[in-house]
């Protein structure tokens, strides 16, 4: 069974600074996908970034980037130049092939302070 662990229930960061959210996972599979989702307060959950396990290059999406360490089964999210709109719950998620279910971590609540 796959598990996803987010060890930081809550984090805060000053506006314009950089913050890193941690995620570790456990799987015996070799090919899989990892995701970070963002859920702002009372708003829709949206995909932030996606990483294929077979790709060594870390995914980036504007101010969002990941540090994917396959051997360590680690998938952290770095948010650069944090903005007030980044305040949200962030969920790390894992799926090992297109026919299976996403496994979500417990979430990290991020607050960006002005």
């Amino acid at each position: 069974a796959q598990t996803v662990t987010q060890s930081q229930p809550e984090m805060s960061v000053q506006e314009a600074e950089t913050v890193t959210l941690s995620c570790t996972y456990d799987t015996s599979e070799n090919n899989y996908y990892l995701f970070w989702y963002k859920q702002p307060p009372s708003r829709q959950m949206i995909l932030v970034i996606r990483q294929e396990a077979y790709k060594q290059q870390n995914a980036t999406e504007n101010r969002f980037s990941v540090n994917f360490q396959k051997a360590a089964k680690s998938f952290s999210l770095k948010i650069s130049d944090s903005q007030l709109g980044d305040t949200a719950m962030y969920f790390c998620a894992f799926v090992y092939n297109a026919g299976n279910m996403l496994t979500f971590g417990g979430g990290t609540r991020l607050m960006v302070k002005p």
Partner: protein
Amino acid sequence: EADIYQTPRYLVIGTGKKITLECSQTMGHDKMYWYQQDPGMELHLIHYSYGVNSTEKGDLSSESTVSRIRTEHFPLTLESARPSHTSQYLCASSDLVYTDTQYFGPGTRLTVL
């Protein structure tokens, strides 16, 4: 614009009522899902569907039922709502063939009095 919709966004009802939470997507996705999100924000999969006439129970046991008569529509029904059903319900969909990235609806916040 392709999207996924849920109605109602908020619902407050009394115990014993039958309710249906609607979910529709315009992306032509085969797979659809229902999640229950508890106050601690953890997500629990309660139902999913691979396509028309396919429905499966998820990891979390739920008294709700679902149907998938049309590709774009995946409603969730509670025959007799109870206070323990009070929660946020999220619908999602994904393209089975090319990617398993899930796209989420805005959610329905249900309160059963």
